[in-house]
């Protein structure tokens, strides 16, 4: 708890959406001592705590602060790309109140002392909640399992091999078996590295561009393998970034078999397709690669029907040194913290996904998967709240990007939906001016 407790805050005249309660109604959010006192219609005429700051939301939406399941930060090791401080600033501006940091830093977060380092740096420099994901294998090499027990005790919320798959099925099986003893969630990037072996989605588009292709099957095969291993080990598993219609089918079938599995998708795969690459624009190079329009539509449908549980930014800051190269030589990755909510709202505006479903995929569902108290506006929950106007138009200008790296595929994009205020543990960390 911070020594200076923020003064009470009342967000009045809001449209309160709390997906955990399936609530979407006019009301208020009352915050004191960093936690929610009341939220929703029942909070509307409750009066205000003594000394409270009262903010008139003028009908804007107040929802739980967003939880971003998959965020790469340059700290430690590549602070010129992004620090925990700059990432948290970007997050706050995007309405994200909790970031789960990927372990693929330098050094890799595969030691309890490094988890502790992330917590200390976050406490000292970050304005949003930072929850470290720890490495699944030592050095992310995919050969030796990391110290899942000790890392979990240090505070790691889940385990992932970053943007690399664990290729060896026996290694993966043993890790999942071991992780189950600790009730640890295994988050996996599902892409067979040998079969992938390309730089953009395989198909006609790649062929005309003269680029080597990443077949969809590289993802599907790895995902199918993983779910068989989940069946053997009965562990908790999350497919972090799926991108094909067949992957969604595999997840559906796995859930129908009663496996403890969830799936995620990056915002990029909901809003872009391979045609956006245009003239080899490397900000659109990522892993998995952007797929065709049919797959994008399948991803949207999978979010709408709940097959995909979690939407993340897959925020991955890269600078000119790593991006300004010929396509095949450029690094994967795009930033996305600041635009996560605004981009997701495109699916709401196009009537493809209900607003409450979209928000659930970025609030209570990631929270539930990690066993967090946040991600909801229930009484006693941490007061992480985002206020946004779903219709306010804006344009992402490169000069306004808060991330240290500017590799956004949304540069100069128009959005409808603007974050107005972000509150973390009762403290306002961002206001739109």
């Amino acid at each position, binding site marked *: 708890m911070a020594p200076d407790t923020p003064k009470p805050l009342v967000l009045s005249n809001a449209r309160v959406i709390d997906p955990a309660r399936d609530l979407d109604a006019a009301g208020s959010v009352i915050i004191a001592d960093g936690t929610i006192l009341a939220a929703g219609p029942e909070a509307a005429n409750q009066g205000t705590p003594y000394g409270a700051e009262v903010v008139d939301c003028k009908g804007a939406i107040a929802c739980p602060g967003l939880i971003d399941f998959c965020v790469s930060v340059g700290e430690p090791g590549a602070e010129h790309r992004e620090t925990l401080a700059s990432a948290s600033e970007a997050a706050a501006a995007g309405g994200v109140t909790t970031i789960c940091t990927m372990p693929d830093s330098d050094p890799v977060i595969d030691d309890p002392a490094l988890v502790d380092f992330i917590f200390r740096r976050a406490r000292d420099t970050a304005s949003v909640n930072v929850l470290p994901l720890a490495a699944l*294998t*030592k050095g992310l090499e995919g*050969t*030796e*399992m*990391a*110290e*899942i*027990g*000790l890392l979990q005790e240090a505070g790691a919320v889940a385990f992932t091999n970053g943007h690399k798959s664990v290729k060896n099925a026996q*290694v993966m099986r*043993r890790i999942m*078996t*071991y992780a*189950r*003893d600790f009730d640890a969630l295994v988050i996996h990037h599902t892409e067979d590295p040998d079969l992938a072996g390309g730089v953009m989605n395989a198909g006609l588009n790649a062929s005309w561009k003269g680029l080597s292709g990443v077949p969809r099957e590289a993802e599907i095969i790895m995902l199918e393998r993983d779910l068989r291993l989940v069946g053997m*080990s009965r562990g908790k598993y999350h497919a972090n970034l799926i991108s094909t219609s067949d992957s969604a089918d595999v997840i559906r079938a796995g859930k129908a078999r009663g496996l403890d599995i969830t799936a995620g998708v990056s915002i990029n795969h909901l809003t872009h397709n391979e045609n956006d690459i245009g003239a080899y624009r490397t900000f659109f190079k990522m892993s998995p690669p952007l797929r065709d329009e049919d797959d994008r539509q399948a991803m949207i449908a999978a979010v709408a029907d709940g097959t995909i549980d979690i939407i993340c930014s897959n925020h991955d800051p890269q600078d000119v040194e790593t991006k300004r190269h010929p396509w095949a030589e450029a690094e994967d990755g795009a930033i996305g913290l600041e635009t996560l909510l605004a981009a997701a709202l495109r699916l709401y505006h196009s009537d493809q996904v209900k607003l409450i479903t979209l928000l659930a995929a970025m609030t209570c569902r990631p929270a539930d998967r990690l066993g967090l108290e946040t991600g909801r506006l229930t009484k006693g929950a941490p007061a992480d709240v985002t206020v946004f106007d779903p219709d306010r138009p804006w344009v992402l200008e490169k000069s306004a990007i808060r991330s240290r790296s500017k590799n956004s595929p949304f540069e100069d994009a128009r959005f409808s939906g603007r974050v107005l205020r972000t509150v973390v543990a009762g403290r306002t960390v961002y206001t739109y001016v």
Partner: protein
Amino acid sequence: MTATHSHRETPFPHRHLLGIEGLHPHEILGLLDRAEEAVEVSRQVHKRKHVLEGRTQINLFFEASTRTQSSFELAGKRLGADVMNMAVSQSSVKKGETLIDTAATLNAMNPDLLVVRHHAAGAVQLLARKVSCSVVNAGDGPHEHPTQALLDALTIRRHKGKIARLTVAICGDIAHSRVARSNIILLNALGARVRVIAPSTLLPSGIGKMGVEVFQDMREGLKGADIVMMLRLQRERMNGAFIPSVREYYRYYGLDADKLAFARDDALVMHPGPMNRGVEIDPSVADGPQSLIREQVEMGVAVRMAVLEALAANLPNN
């Protein structure tokens, strides 16, 4: 069944001792009672009996061993046998056919007793079919190690007066342990309640149907235990393949005073050796007042004497 009723005269109607599996409880108790006598013999100044006088015992170890081999050697010598140790380096043996060739060669030397250890499960059984003498399994891969289970039972019975209804927790690398398999069979045969404690990666599949209660949490598994049986963790399994690291294994599965406190106050600690102090067991526990580890070694000689004697009784021309 208790130690007070002697099974000393129970016949042992087997040519070989290849495993605990297949032994009747009264046969096991018979061996334990014989072993009690052997303890007495071994504690005399003059430690020699003559039941194996003129007999030849060959110790054939395809896998390195100090304590088991010397224990069998002493046992044979205390019974008056001529004992020969054959260390077979693994590189010179290429399994299968060569194993049978070795058996045929040895058989031609007309031994009476053959004590065999091999790194492959089932190798001792295969060899037993090819020779005309009695064969004792001194450990075949992760399959069985019957004399270890017998010496463990003897040690337990001498301290607790019984085996039945004791709660025995076997902790560690169950998956790769012949000691665990033989003990699970023997302890169940004599009516003990057997638990296993290990990370899931070190449990064989189907463990839930092997007559044991399974625990991943060591403290839970030790609650109310009368006997804590630790297993050695092989070095090659320590670094990332089955468990992440020694320090993590020690934290969750190393027997230290704190975890041992969850067992009964009069719980006893056992280990088949050789120990890895600071990996599966804390030095203060290994060498502490509840430890029976030294005594297990003494009982090992006695049990092997009992086994050799029981088998010799069935040899031709006896």
